[in-house]
């Protein structure tokens, strides 16, 4: 019977930083003039996220999210928006790739700097049923980037 959740793994999942972002999400709200705006939901559980992104040239100048969901999906969205501000397209692509690796169980190197506070979500990888929660905001980000690319094309 797959039942991997020991107390230690639960503690690793529900770190104080995650619960803090859940209770006090950063960048929650809507932008007045976003360059890209995406609504996404998880049909399996009903979690919803709206993501709005403003660009300044190649950089994300501002980003906000709205919606409702579990601690993992909201903390992931909150920490993601914090990290994205001021990042260039190339930097964002690298962060997205690293975060997906983290969710697939790739241990971050000890000197990992790129993901910043998002490393707190590394415990999610041990809970396959919850990986989709952590990735909801990131899927919305990919749609927003794709929408921006289409608009520019």
């Amino acid at each position, binding site marked *: 019977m797959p039942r991997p959740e020991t107390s230690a793994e639960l503690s690793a999942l529900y770190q104080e930083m995650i619960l803090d972002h859940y*209770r006090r999400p950063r960048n929650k709200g809507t932008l007045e003039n976003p360059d890209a705006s995406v609504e996404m939901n998880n049909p399996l559980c009903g979690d919803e996220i709206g993501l709005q992104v403003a660009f300044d040239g190649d950089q994300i100048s501002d980003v906000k999210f709205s919606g409702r969901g579990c601690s993992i999906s909201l903390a992931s969205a909150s920490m993601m928006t914090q990290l994205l501000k001021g990042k260039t397209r190339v930097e964002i692509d690298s962060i997205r790739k690293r975060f997906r690796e983290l969710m697939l169980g790739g241990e971050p190197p000890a000197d990992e700097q790129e993901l910043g506070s998002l490393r707190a979500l590394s415990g999610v990888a041990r809970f396959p049923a919850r990986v989709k929660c952590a990735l909801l905001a990131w899927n919305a980000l990919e749609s927003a980037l794709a929408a921006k690319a289409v608009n520019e094309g």
Partner: protein
Amino acid sequence: MNRADLNRTGEHAGTESRRADFPLLVANPGLHYLDSAATSQKPKIVLDALRGFYESANANPHRGAYSLSVRATECYHQARVRIAQFLGVRDSDCLIFTRGTTEGLNLVAGSWGFANITNEDEIVVTALDHHANFVPWQVLAMRKGAKFRVCELTPDGRIDLDFLSGLLNARTKIVAFNHVSNALGTINPIDEIVRLVREKTDAILVCDGAQSAPHFPVSFDSLGIDFYAFSGHKMLGPMGIGGLIGTRAMLEEMPPYQTGGDMIELVHDDRTTWNVLPHKFEAGTPNAANAVGLAAAVDYLESIGMDEVIAHERSLMALAQERLAAIDGLRIYGPPPAQRSGVVSFTLADVHPHDLATILDGEGVCIRAGHHCAQPLMRRLDVPATARASFYVYNDESDIDALITGIIKAREIFTYAEA
């Protein structure tokens, strides 16, 4: 069974554990399975029946002239007769095997609905319905330009009968409702619904029985409805088998749902005639093995007695209700226990149900967290999701102990970030 009967039988619930009959539960002594409203565990006699069919009777039913095929046909037929008898259907040809409740409801919508609904008609469902008894009717209404109307609920999650009465008129052609709500456990007053609908309309009555057939005695012939759909896997049977029961008059008049082998009488180049009931609605090779498995599940349930099944569940549900209600910040949804089957739907302060389910999983407790395929209901309750614990024949008090322990642990994990 009506509510008064349920209350009468609620006193003498058996507490003896039946875990020993369920191989998965035996193999996992620390597992507390409280998600039977999603799917039930399977007793050994069901698994043996499946194996027995494949080892001793496997051939394509209705096809071969050889004796093994005759044996397969006979097993399949006997399963139908057995299950029809269990559900109070005297004319067993009126029990059509389907993949489950969803397919049964789609069969009615796709066959009767498509043939009979026009843009002058109205279809009524309730806000308590599972998506499987909501979306097929919504799609039918959209295709035909008919009016789709949703019956509102009382604040405690029961069908609002006054509201329903107000929706019904001479244009109402279909009224679909569930016997028991999967999300809240509400037992709907089927007799009153039937009386109201028959009084004010010529509509057909379609009942989603996915959550009633597994839990208390159901006698289709005395319900006064036109169709009743159920799922085998929620009543100790295999996945992928269930049924639709209809009145003979209705089923005879309906066009086929799917076409192909087994459901035809004569196929000419320019036309085809249909086989008799039940075969007209069972195109292709039937799921004979699973039908045999479901018949074994029915035998098992009857060996306990359906009055005892519901009494056992309700005594556990009442105990869970009492202990849950004592937890600070815990909110229970739905009507009082006396009007519910063995289901408790709840939320815990600002802990999202998914987080609760993950933490409970760490205690070996399996509950459902989510919208329960009932988004219209969740919207009315104004919650994105609830946690749901559901009880069945193999549960006992130790499962409730583990549930409570896990919920308290979730509170602790989430408390330190409050402040």
